[in-house]
């Protein structure tokens, strides 16, 4: 079950990890027993250089943050480094009420194994900062240039906390990195993470006093096709955006979406202009619209969107799909996966044309990643 040609879907939930496996047909699924049962798993991610290397961010309110690592495709795990110490005196950011609030580590939201080096992995944390390990998670060092950016004392948490939730490497340039923070926005480094610049030009957010501010935007997720590192897609709090100059400028591509609020965004594995989002009613109603679970696909890089509904519930459905809970595989017929706060994981093996649940009754899903296995 652990070593086979096909796909391995890594699901992080409120109460443990589940590993879902299938062959290339992706119709006959095996669901693992829960791993780390009872622990909150914000993210599970495998290395693209070595699919046997997987990391999990594990935490509870009682016992804090742990990082688990597997070197055999998820069969066995070992706790690794869990010390996330801010570099130097961490200073303050703004609290919800506008008063200064000291930076405090809460949890690891996102783990990003490097595409350049198998033992390098990034961790995006709350309160927002970026950490890197170069020894496979054994120890973590902050890249403090981001958290000490001039704008940082003005950053404010989004409703889910002030989290660094997205880390994207440029596969063609080991020195270039993108991160996104709720609710500060996008930052880019061109020197391997030492220094950072906000990249939010073109974003407009009605919830902040200056709609076009340099920082303060609640970016929910970024996505990049590895062959087009200049092009980024963004699901902002409200608005779906794209940039074709590595984040220097953004334009809105929400087009005909029924609502442009949402969390995840993903790009087709073989078609860089095919993009997926899951529209969510609003920031005050974190459920899909009209009781219908619909993925929207654009084959034109945004602006024109079509609903994908075959096999998804079209009545009495009121779930959310969180920012880290959608992924694509890279088989010839691109597979798409997402998990809901209701504990369902849905899969499509035909780029979204049709869907079926892999499993329906897991704990609330926080993250979904997929590994395409040789």
């Amino acid at each position, binding site marked *: 079950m652990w070593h086979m040609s096909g796909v391995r879907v890594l699901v992080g939930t409120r109460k443990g990890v589940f590993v879902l496996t299938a062959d290339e047909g992706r119709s006959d699924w095996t669901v693992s027993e829960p791993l780390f049962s*009872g*622990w909150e798993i914000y993210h599970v991610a495998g290395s693209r250089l070595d699919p046997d290397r997987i990391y999990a961010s594990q935490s*509870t*309110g*009682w*016992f*804090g*943050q*742990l990082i688990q690592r597997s070197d055999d495709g998820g069969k066995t795990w070992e*706790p690794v480094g*869990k*010390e996330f*110490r801010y570099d130097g005196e961490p200073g303050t950011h703004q609290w919800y009420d506008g008063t200064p609030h000291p930076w405090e580590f809460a949890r690891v939201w996102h783990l990003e194994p490097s595409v350049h080096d198998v033992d390098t992995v990034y961790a995006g944390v709350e309160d927002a900062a970026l950490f890197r390990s170069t020894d496979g998670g054994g120890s973590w060092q902050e890249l403090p240039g981001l958290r000490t950016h001039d704008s940082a004392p003005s950053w404010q948490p989004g409703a889910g906390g002030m989290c660094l939730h997205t880390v994207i490497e440029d596969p063609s340039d080991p020195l270039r990195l993108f991160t996104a923070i709720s609710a500060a926005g996008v930052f880019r480094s061109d020197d391997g993470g030492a220094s950072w610049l906000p990249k939010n030009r073109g974003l407009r957010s009605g919830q902040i006093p200056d709609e076009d501010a340099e920082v303060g935007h609640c970016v929910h997720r970024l996505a990049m096709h590895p062959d087009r590192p200049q092009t980024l897609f963004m699901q902002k709090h409200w608005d779906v955006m794209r940039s074709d100059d590595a984040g220097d400028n953004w334009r809105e591509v929400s087009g005909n979406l029924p609502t442009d609020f949402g969390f995840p965004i993903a790009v087709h594995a073989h078609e860089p202009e095919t993009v997926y989002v899951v529209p969510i009613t609003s920031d005050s109603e974190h459920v899909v619209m009209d009781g219908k679970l619909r993925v929207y696909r654009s084959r034109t890089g945004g602006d024109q969107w079509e609903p994908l509904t075959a096999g998804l519930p079209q009545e009495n459905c009121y779930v959310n799909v969180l920012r880290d809970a959608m992924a694509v595989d890279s088989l010839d017929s691109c597979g798409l996966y997402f998990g809901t706060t209701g504990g369902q994981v849905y899969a499509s093996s035909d780029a979204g044309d049709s869907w079926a649940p892999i499993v329906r009754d897991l704990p609330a899903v926080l993250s979904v990643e997929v590994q395409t296995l040789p």
Partner: protein
Amino acid sequence: MVLPAHLRSLANLSGEVTVVAGDEPTIRSVLDALERAHPALRGTIRDQESGKRRPFVRYYACSEDLSHEPVSTPLPPEVLAGKEPFLVVGAMAGG
């Protein structure tokens, strides 16, 4: 000592755990000894940096709550004699 189920599974322990913590064990020294013997538990009971008890963790022994006692407090004689355990407990929280 008795640990919560989550921490037993993390440290691959079953049942009670016995630690050697010197001649006059205190709350601090018994936790130090536990973490030395089982490094995976570092940071799960006490903050690694400050050494402070995590907010939702409690220490009990002999039906007494020792959570708010100074960490230099000696453990009760019944615990040293092995008649009563020192309990690390996950406080009631969440739903």
